[in-house]
């Protein structure tokens, strides 16, 4: 019954994968109005930590821009086993997107990518919160095989809720097997859906337990054309533009509770971050101003000593002075966006850093994960959100 991609595979087909360092799978939800979900994009060219495409790809056919024709189909392959850690990361820490996205907004755009696996939300659409989660492929996969004519990258859109569901089913089978033999294999296939004449692409989860085996096909979009993949790549690169100053917020639950309550008061939030380690949030309407200031947070990047005597000033005055001295930045963002980005704390990051990108381009939230049991940053996973700035504010 299984059609397409793997049917004619021979060991030689995979010989080129030995030089794959990085895989980028981008699941883009931008075609979500169609029946299929998000696009996935696999990139075999990128070393971890560097997102620039290097010309390692012997397979590229420069003319091909659409995922059409048997030739490309044959060239586009992806197959891997999910590791235990990978399953845990995806299930418990990342795919919470499924709840927030599907419920809140039908037009939510979402990208899932692998370098590393990238899960990106709204990266191309430009409106709303953009989120990117990025994993080292070795954390997620073993026996990782990918090929495409698009610089070894494949990107597609997938409904993350469906993806999550498939993962949960696979996990259940695995748990029933009670041993490690029940590995979860995922691969790209093309098959004929019931009642249709055209084959459609799927991401298939195969779990073979001792007593049962489950094959679950998650519908995906056609892989993104080369242009979109490039665009996604540049968007990811642009996102590397770090704010000069980042402040650390440890208690995300407290921040979320505050933000939830502030939403009753107004829609627009002015966020100011200073090099002294102050984070100042303020909602202001014609009838009311409510603000909150967190001081002496840990600072990464550019820092400065607070002026002497600033403790006696009020929070808004203090912030305004810092901005005037060029030691702070302030932007206006939507409280709805901030609340949405805070849902990311469901991914249980160990802490979060807030910063304002140069020229107030966006509010960046970088979540930090520790290696379990240590205080060392887990570099195999990176996760950040960018909130669009509504008005390049000058002061609170």
């Amino acid at each position, binding site marked *: 019954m299984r059609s397409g991609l793997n049917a004619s595979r021979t060991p030689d087909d995979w010989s080129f994968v030995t030089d794959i360092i990085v895989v980028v799978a981008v699941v883009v939800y931008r075609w979500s109005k169609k029946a299929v979900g998000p696009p996935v994009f696999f990139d075999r060219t990128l070393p971890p930590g560097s997102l620039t495409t290097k010309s390692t790809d012997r397979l590229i056919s420069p003319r091909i821009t659409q995922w059409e024709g048997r030739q490309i189909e044959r060239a586009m392959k992806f197959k891997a086993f999910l590791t235990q850690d990978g399953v845990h990361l995806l299930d418990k820490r990342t795919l919470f997107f499924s709840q927030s996205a599907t419920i809140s907004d039908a037009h939510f755009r979402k990208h899932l990518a692998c370098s590393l696996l990238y899960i990106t939300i709204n990266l191309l659409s430009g409106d709303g919160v953009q989120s990117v989660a990025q994993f080292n492929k070795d954390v997620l996969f073993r026996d990782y095989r990918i090929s495409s004519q698009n610089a070894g990258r494949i990107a597609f859109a997938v409904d993350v809720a469906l993806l999550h569901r498939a993962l949960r089913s696979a996990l259940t089978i695995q748990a029933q097997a009670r041993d490690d033999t029940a590995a979860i294999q995922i691969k790209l296939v093309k098959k004929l859906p019931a009642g249709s004449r055209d084959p459609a692409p799927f991401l298939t989860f195969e779990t073979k337990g001792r007593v049962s085996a489950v094959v679950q096909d998650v519908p995906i979009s056609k892989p993104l054309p080369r242009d979109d993949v490039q665009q996604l790549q540049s968007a990811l690169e642009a996102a590397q533009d770090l704010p000069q100053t980042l402040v650390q917020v440890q208690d995300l639950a407290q921040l979320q509770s505050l933000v939830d309550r502030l939403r*009753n008061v107004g829609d627009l939030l002015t966020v100011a971050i200073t090099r002294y380690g102050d984070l100042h949030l303020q909602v202001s309407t014609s*009838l009311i101003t409510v603000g*909150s200031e967190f*001081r002496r947070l840990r600072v990464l990047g550019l820092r400065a000593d607070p002026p002497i005597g600033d*403790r*006696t000033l009020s*929070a808004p005055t203090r912030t305004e002075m810092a901005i005037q001295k060029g030691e702070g930045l302030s932007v206006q963002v939507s409280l709805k966006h901030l609340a949405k980005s805070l849902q990311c704390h469901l991914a249980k990051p160990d802490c979060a850093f807030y910063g304002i990108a140069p020229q107030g381009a966006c509010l960046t939230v970088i979540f930090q994960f520790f290696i379990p049991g240590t205080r060392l940053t887990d570099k195999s996973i990176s996760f950040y959100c960018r909130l669009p700035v509504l008005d390049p504010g000058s002061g609170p």
Partner: protein
Amino acid sequence: MSSSAGVGGDAPDLVCQLDCAQGMVDALSSVRWKRHQDAVVEISEHGVVLIVEESGCLQAKVYLKRELFLAYEYTAEGRPRFGLSLGLFVDCLNTFSTPGHAPVIEIRYPGPDMQLLLKTVDSPDACIYAEIRTRIPDTISWDCNFQSTGNVHATFTEAVDDLEWPGSSIQIVLQPDPPSVILRGEGHGDLQVEFPYYANTDLLIAFQCDQHVSYRYKYKFLRATTSHIPNSVLKDNRGSKVTIGRGGMLKIQHLISVKRAGGQHSHGDISGGIQQLSRIAYIEFFVKPEEDESPVNDT
């Protein structure tokens, strides 16, 4: 901390401190029957009174005695009044009360631009502050000169909430013999609920009535008097006092305990009992009866 102290030159009318934002939110929410609702606040040396009114027929007052506050410095003469949006005030107080932590909030009036100023004062490294714009208050259209003709100390007001009343108004009857309270509604079918005093001593805690009294009240107003009291408060409800005054003015009084979040402060344990007794907000609703000329009384 004293940043805004010197702004106006002379001392503000009121500077007080509060450590039970959630209790205050509960008390004020009880009289918030609409999302956007204006209120008048009157401050005096005895405490703060917040008054809400609707269409001249329903009035609610929340009495926050000065004992409810950690500190209460009142320096004004007369009784300053100002108007504000009750909804904003409640939402704003709500942002101050974080779960598991009851910050000390300083409330100050007036600010440099006649605002109501709030800020937390107990933590130097994290603060919340708010400025609420006030306005010149509307005159209260009626002040109740209340004289009782019969009253019931009761918890039966839930009957108003829980039953499906058929019409837009409810008739309340108090009769001395046999002592009982009757609620009656007419519309698409009739509904009558009778509470004989002797059969419902747990429901009607006290009953005092010399003459037969019967008035009709708008259902939506009766509902407003009970339905917005937060559930958390209802659990240890001390009962409500329902009184019908001269001319049929209905007065419903609730006592709402304004507890500290968590309720366990090491320094407050010894005098805890006494403190809790005084930590009560009084809430009074006044409902005017429907004009009694015609029994149907539809507009």
